[in-house]
């Protein structure tokens, strides 16, 4: 099994450029450039390009999913959750390219994404209803629950990271194991399965992040309402 973090192309003291960062950059460039190419000729009327149509479908559906979870103003959370989903999904979809290893199969990447979610949840909760109202969540239902709430926050972050890492890494690992046993047919099937797994994991990661954010917003909002009453 290839560890992307250990494939270092350039190193200067603490700084280093490994495969994980390089592949992530490539994916970022493709995503950003593709978005720019499509949206620079964006039209408001009914006649629009197929690319714009596709992009709008993706954005509208992500927005719809966020709304279905129970977040009242999905447009505020769309960039964060949409970027999470698109990055993980695109990283998983690219596994169809021979020799490509998704950066999400690196625990560092998944931990980074989980840390982002870990900080995003209180950020959105506080921006929605204020610092005090958010912090009160940790004392709910009683003060005794504070350590458990903190443990819950930490554990779910770790769970997010490990879940994504485990699934993505297992896919890549199974393919490499199967290649050594049966070099034909099976790796193709597993690759196709890997595509599905990548999409499912992107969906699960984004939905879980959305659920955490929604919970933070609703709980802090509930506290605020109680205070007003």
């Amino acid at each position: 099994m290839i560890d992307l973090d250990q494939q270092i192309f350039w190193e200067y003291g603490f700084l280093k450029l490994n495969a994980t960062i390089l592949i992530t950059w490539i994916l970022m460039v493709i995503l950003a450039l593709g978005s720019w190419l499509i949206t620079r000729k964006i039209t408001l009327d009914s006649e629009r390009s197929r690319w714009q149509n596709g992009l709008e479908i993706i954005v509208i559906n992500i927005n719809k999913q966020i709304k279905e979870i129970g977040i009242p103003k999905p447009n505020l959370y769309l960039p964060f959750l949409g970027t999470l989903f698109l990055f993980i999904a695109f990283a998983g979809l690219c596994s169809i390219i021979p020799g490509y290893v998704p950066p999400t199969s690196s625990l560092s990447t998944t931990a980074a994404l989980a840390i982002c979610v870990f900080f995003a949840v209180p950020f959105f909760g506080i921006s929605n209803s204020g610092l005090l109202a958010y912090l009160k969540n940790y004392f709910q239902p009683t003060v005794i629950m504070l350590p458990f709430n903190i443990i819950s926050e930490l554990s779910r972050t770790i769970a997010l990271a490990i879940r994504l890492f485990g699934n993505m890494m297992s896919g890549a690992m199974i393919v490499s194991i199967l290649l050594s046993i049966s070099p034909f047919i099976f790796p193709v099937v597993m690759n196709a399965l890997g595509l599905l797994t990548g999409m499912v994991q992107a969906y699960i990661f984004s939905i879980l992040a959305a659920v955490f954010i929604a919970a933070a917003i609703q709980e802090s909002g509930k506290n605020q309402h109680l205070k007003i009453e």
Partner: protein
Amino acid sequence: MLIDWFTVIAQVLNFLLLLWLLKRLLFTPVLTAIDERENSIKTQIAEAEQKMTLAAAEKNTYHQKNKDFEVERDTLLTEATNTANTKHKALLEAARIEAEALRVHLEQSLKNDQQNISREIRERTQQEVIAISRKVLADLASTSLEEQIVAVFIRRLAQIKGEEKERLIESLTKAAKEIIIKSAFELSLDQQAAIEKAILPLTSDPIRCRFDISSKTISGIELNVDGYKMAWSVADYLDSLEKVLAEMLNGHPDFQATSKPTKNEPTV
């Protein structure tokens, strides 16, 4: 497999960079475009609804106007029909009256024309009949006829009786010794003597007779004395005939009776 914390920090930064890039290049433009399109569609729908409302209102207005117009049209049509019928009747009545007047006038004209023609025919016929009769009698006039005329005159003179005889005698008495005898032909001396002889018994005074010839007296002889006139002439018969013809042509009711020949009709 360990976590490389540098990579974690780098990936966090990468993710934040990607978040910023996608927000700027993807989500904001697409959401703006979608929102603007939705707003545009909402505006269009609102405008369409407003137009539909206006159109519905206009439709109702036009329906109402149409109904009013139909009612007004029916009313006007009924009024026009009634007026036309009344006018038609009035015109027909006027035409009938005018036609009746014209017919009466025409009938009157025809009647007048008929009467004029009838009168003209009648007069012409009468004139022709009289003219023919006068010409025939003039042509037939002869000595023997004149003698017969004188004889008839003398006989009538002798046969005169009653009131007429008294009037004649009275006139002869008043006359200044001369009586005038007019005839259509020249009387011979014998005839003059015979006439004087016939008159003589009727007067006690001697009287002289003057014998004149008159062309008006057709085959006749006439005695004039002091306003009294006694005559026998074919012209008298012809005058009588003329009278009968006139009565006959005028449709006189006594036509049948008067058209019969009289007993005194002369035999020529």
